[in-house]
């Protein structure tokens, strides 16, 4: 059919099929701004456009419905080289992180500002109520709107949206425009989906309907015969290579316990077959033609079921070790259909008992410690399965170029990806190029190779361009989720509150494969125990295989669940002791100068190293937080059904992995004295690219605009482990700074020759000039000299960053809740996050990450939960039924305060910030609920059922 409508001010006619969605039409017409995060459910708003002035979901509207109407997309907001006041305000206020939802947000606020000249907080929340953002926590949008209004009057109005730090520095510690912000706010090509060439094939995977089954027979002949099908892959035709999808440094602690396709399926949605076809519709049709006979097995869905004596074995596999095989290794009874497990080194697994990994350790004498205690408590805390829910689902686009495989990935780990795909495909690393495009949110889920190896294999075999994108349902059932955990905490203390013994017993459910099965549950201990100073500490960690949807890395990496358990146990201990919770924490908490002996036994698959705490902002965080929330003051409420309570938690994380992580950067001076930085840093939207550019600009005393950046392209930049373990600022930023320092030396050396002055006479001054006593030379002059026929050669340096030192970010989160005692509803009235991030390099983005981490975990604490039926099928694999936090879930009073410390090891005194914010919400909210109604809720989410049962109402 033919329709005519006004598109961005111009009347356009289109031929379309009657069922085509408006989003699809816009996409095929080249409008990139209408993104897709929910497959047409209308629950994410990433596809928002304005229809006759009103913001709508273009995925929920048939294109035919807009006949005769006016449609406006983000592309209409500004000309090629300009930003509208709203676009610039969004970037400068820090509300643009990954940028996938940004077009939708912008359209919604544009709509608002045409309706309301001076919108209030509630009107702004209402305007963006349909847009899902997982990164930012929405809070800074209020500042963005305020700034936009000012810029509508005064286009040059400067942003003052965050505090500034380190006055002696020019760009570090200051809010400067995010280097990728303009592209994201204008919806320029940035994401994998924007890179796909016409004619690319589509890959779809047939997922298992069973949680646990053997594939007895599979017949793909009808699918292969379908016109337009390029290839079909099954366990019979895929590479016979075992690997793990976890993007970790080699040798990985995660077991190699899977092939691309197995003859056993271990979760609903597990791979059965892949089809590559010339259209998405043909691929879907071909999947329907594949015949599969299963031998269905009893699924294992919980830690208890996995640990039972007669439990079905999830991996009854043949086991081998690269090093350290135990002398009693016995493979008798292994079922060949289960395949193999290869351990790089022992992780104390026992797959016949469904144990994927285990570890124990401690310091001091626990028994003695508990004997010395006047009070001993033991509590169990449990948690549900929550999903990372990046707005952009997993996606990869693969193609061949000059005989090499090119992978356009939305990944956190380009180099690990290249290494693992090299192994799986049996090709050399120099035959593979991974280009990390902008990631539309990741949060740990894209630390693993969830779909890239299938697309890569298909392209390598067929030579065809292949696009593989998860549906939202696949994102839930076949991507990554947070490990389910039960954590028992035993605490001993003297009457005065002194801790005498602390023990954590962590039981984790890793699901069907062992990605991060050792390290995530260990992190529940290693980011919790060191917060307290106690001579006697111990832990036991046991991780089980099961048939739930896959788990893996998720922002916080086990720490949120360990933190929930230990922090809440300490709150319960305070209650048992009759002490003020804050007083008990103050008595026992870590502080500057503390030596963390417990870290000796908390290495990642090897012996760890005790670390001294060089900087710790916990003291001021607790002091300021208590003052802000009115700690100790009982709040009154007029509604007799509602009780108000307060709670808090102290938190920590790391800054990358000392002695494990590495980052590289190369810096080259161009002919006019500007620079190209090649960084391995993998920006997930957090602002890492801005960090690395700032490192160079600050060190070389030049404007940020004089530094161009090519990040995370394995053909171009040097090795970087990737963005995980809160390593970005510390490691990738550190590498950029090291490169800049080396460049500075080269510049001074060259200037010394040119000016004929000794080095000690020279100083580098802004904007890119070396000044001596006799004169000065600009960087451009140095470039011309070094690149001349008699020059010393173009100035270029490559440096890396490694460290054996640990820098711990700390924080204290306080909250105030109102609990409706008749409905069990919990309202977060106040949430104050006070965090020590060392020197905040990008203050506005630092705050945004904290807001985002907190809101995410408020969701986890109160309502997010994957619900499986008795057969392991997820009942709520969509954003609406799963429930993700939207602007309507914002606390009434939501604040972030940055506690400045000057870390001796991080670049310009920085520490990480990306994960720690996820560790405070659950324990702080639960403690506040107890303060309000006297009920301890020890499992998240804190459902109304649990609260009402605790109150004896149901």
């Amino acid at each position, binding site marked *: 059919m033919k329709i005519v409508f006004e598109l961005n001010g111009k009347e356009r006619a289109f031929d379309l099929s009657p069922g085509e969605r408006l989003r699809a039409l816009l996409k095929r017409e080249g409008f990139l701004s209408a993104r897709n995060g929910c497959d047409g459910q209308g629950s994410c708003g990433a596809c928002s456009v304005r229809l006759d002035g009103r913001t*709508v979901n273009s995925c929920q509207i048939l294109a035919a419905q807009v006949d005769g109407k006016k449609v406006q997309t983000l592309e209409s907001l500004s000309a090629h080289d300009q930003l509208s006041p709203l676009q610039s305000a969004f970037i400068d206020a820090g509300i643009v992180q990954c940028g996938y939802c940004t077009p939708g947000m912008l359209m919604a606020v544009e709509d608002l500002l045409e309706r309301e000249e001076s919108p209030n907080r509630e009107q702004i929340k209402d305007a963006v109520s349909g847009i899902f953002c997982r990164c930012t926590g929405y809070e800074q949008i209020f500042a963005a709107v305020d700034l936009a209004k000012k810029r509508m009057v005064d286009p040059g109005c400067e942003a003052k949206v965050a505090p500034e730090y380190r006055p002696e520095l020019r760009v570090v510690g200051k809010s400067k425009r995010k280097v990728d912000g303009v592209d994201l706010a204008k919806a320029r090509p940035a994401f994998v989906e924007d890179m796909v060439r016409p004619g690319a094939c589509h890959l779809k995977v047939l997922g298992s309907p069973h949680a646990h089954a053997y594939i007895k027979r599979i017949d793909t002949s009808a699918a292969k015969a379908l016109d337009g099908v390029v290839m079909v892959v099954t366990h019979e035709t895929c590479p016979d290579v075992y690997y793990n999808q976890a993007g970790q440094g080699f040798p990985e602690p995660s077991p190699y316990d899977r092939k691309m396709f197995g003859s056993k399926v271990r979760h609903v949605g597990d791979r059965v077959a892949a089809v590559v076809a010339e259209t998405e519709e043909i691929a879907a049709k071909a999947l329907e033609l594949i015949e599969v006979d299963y031998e269905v097995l009893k699924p294992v869905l919980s830690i208890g079921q996995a640990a039972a004596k007669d439990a079905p074995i999830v991996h009854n596999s043949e086991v081998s070790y690269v090093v350290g095989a135990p002398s009693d290794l016995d493979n008798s009874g292994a079922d060949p259909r289960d395949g193999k497990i290869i351990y790089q080194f022992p992780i104390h697994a026992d797959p016949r008992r469904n144990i994927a990994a285990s570890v124990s350790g401690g310091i001091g004498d626990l028994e003695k410690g508990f004997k010395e205690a006047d009070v001993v408590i033991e509590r169990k805390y449990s948690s549900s399965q929550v999903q990372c829910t990046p707005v952009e689902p997993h996606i990869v686009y693969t193609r061949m170029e000059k005989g090499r495989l090119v992978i356009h990935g939305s990944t956190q780990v380009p180099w690990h990806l290249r290494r693992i795909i090299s192994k799986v495909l049996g090709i050399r690393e120099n035959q593979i190029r991974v280009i990390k495009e902008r990631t539309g949110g990741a949060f740990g889920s894209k630390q693993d190779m969830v779909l890239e190896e299938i697309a890569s294999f298909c392209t390598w075999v067929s030579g065809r361009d292949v696009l593989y994108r998860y549906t939202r349902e696949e994102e839930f059932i076949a991507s990554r989720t947070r490990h389910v955990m039960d954590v028992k905490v035993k605490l001993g203390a003297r009457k005065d509150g002194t801790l005498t013994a602390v023990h954590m017993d962590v039981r984790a459910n890793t699901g069907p494969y062992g990605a991060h099965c050792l390290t995530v549950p260990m992190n529940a201990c290693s980011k919790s125990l060191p917060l307290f100073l106690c001579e006697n500490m111990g832990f036991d960690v046991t991780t089980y295989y099961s048939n739930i949807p896959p788990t893996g890395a998720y922002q916080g990496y086990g720490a949120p669940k360990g933190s929930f358990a230990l922090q809440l146990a300490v709150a319960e201990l305070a209650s048992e002791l009759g002490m003020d919770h804050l007083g008990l924490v103050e008595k026992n908490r870590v502080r500057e100068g503390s030596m963390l002996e417990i870290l000796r036994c908390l290495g990642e698959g090897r012996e760890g190293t005790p670390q001294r705490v060089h900087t710790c902002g916990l003291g001021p965080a607790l002091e300021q937080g208590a003052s802000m929330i009115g700690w100790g003051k009982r709040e009154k409420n007029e509604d007799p059904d509602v009780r108000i309570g307060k709670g808090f938690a102290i938190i920590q994380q790391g800054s990358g992995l000392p002695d494990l992580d590495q980052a590289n950067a190369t810096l080259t001076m161009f002919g006019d004295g500007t620079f190209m930085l090649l960084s391995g840093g993998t920006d997930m939207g957090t602002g890492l690219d801005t960090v690395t550019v700032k490192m160079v600009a600050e060190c070389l005393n030049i404007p940020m605009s004089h530094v161009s950046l090519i990040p995370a392209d394995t053909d171009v930049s040097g090795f970087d482990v990737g963005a995980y373990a809160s390593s970005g600022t510390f490691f990738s930023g550190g590498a950029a700074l090291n490169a800049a320092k080396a460049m500075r030396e080269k510049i001074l050396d060259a200037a010394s020759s040119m000016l004929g002055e000794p080095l000690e006479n020279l100083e580098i001054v802004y904007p890119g000039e070396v000044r001596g006593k006799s004169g000065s030379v600009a960087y451009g002059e140095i470039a011309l000299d070094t690149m001349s026929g008699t020059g010393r050669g173009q100035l270029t340096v490559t440096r890396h960053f490694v460290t054996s030192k640990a820098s711990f970010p700390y924080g204290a989160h306080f909250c105030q809740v109102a609990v409706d005692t008749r409905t069990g509803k919990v309202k977060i009235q106040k949430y104050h996050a006070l965090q020590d991030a060392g020197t905040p390099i990008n203050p506005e983005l630092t705050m945004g990450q904290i807001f985002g981490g907190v809101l995410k975990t408020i969701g986890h604490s109160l309502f997010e939960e994957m619900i499986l039926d008795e057969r392991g099928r997820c009942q709520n694999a969509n954003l609406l039924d799963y429930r993700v936090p939207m602007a309507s879930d914002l606390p009434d009073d939501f604040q972030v305060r940055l506690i400045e410390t000057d870390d001796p090891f991080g670049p310009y005194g920085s520490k990480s910030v990306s994960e720690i914010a996820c560790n405070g919400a659950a324990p702080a909210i639960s403690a506040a609920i107890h303060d309000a109604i006297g009920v301890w809720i020890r499992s998240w989410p804190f459902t109304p059922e649990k609260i*009402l049962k605790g109150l004896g109402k149901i």
Partner: protein
Amino acid sequence: MIRAFFQPTEIEEALRLGRELGDFATFLAGGTELNAGYAPPPPPNLISLGKLDLGQIERKGGLFAMPATCTIQEMLDASWIPRALAEACRRIVNRNVRNMATIGGHIACNKSCSDIIPALVVLQARMEMTVVATGEERSCSVMEFVESDPPRALIRRILVPDGGGRRVAIENYTRSGNDMSILTAAASISDEDEKIQSPILVVGGVAKNVVRLETLESSIDGGPLPPLEEIEKRVKENVSPISDLRGSAELKRHLAGVLLARALGRAAKGREGGER
């Protein structure tokens, strides 16, 4: 698969298409349900109501009249609609959805946990529609439409009595800000004296459709406001929700009692949110 999209400009044309295409067609209003990714595949022919002139939203002749194609946001933008109805509309928190979803489509979907239907019922709203098969014009209360199995019809207008002399209050319960309501409750009483007169008590989320608790209404009609604990207890005795992923039957029964008692209490006392 959608094969044809019709955009009639006259009601008669829409009805004719509906008659001719029968079960192979459906009316399409805003499309937020029919076009949603989770919805069952629609029939192959869609008859869009987008170009029909069903009138304007207006306050006239003692009635608030809303064309069926009026969006939820347009209702909210009409600042004079009854406060309880506006409150109900706002509970569809997602503005993008409110901008497309229509009141006619919302009622036609007849969801158990509708946020708006309970408000319309206690406000004694009526509907005008044309039966597709016969062309017959019909009028019925929203409650009659909801609880019956109406013939296939084109909903034309929703009419809410203006100044009906009733006190109204609504309640709902969600787990998160944008969540669909797990439970909805609404109550209205005649605004005559201190006694409960002609109460209408409605609960959503406890049965296939929104339900009216007529036995309970009769038992309190004409008397003073009973203790709310008593109302809560009797509501719980009169509903039979099922457990599903949105909540256990136990929770829903409890919430039904609490929320309806609250709504009645608010309506009776004219507390904030009550509508005169």
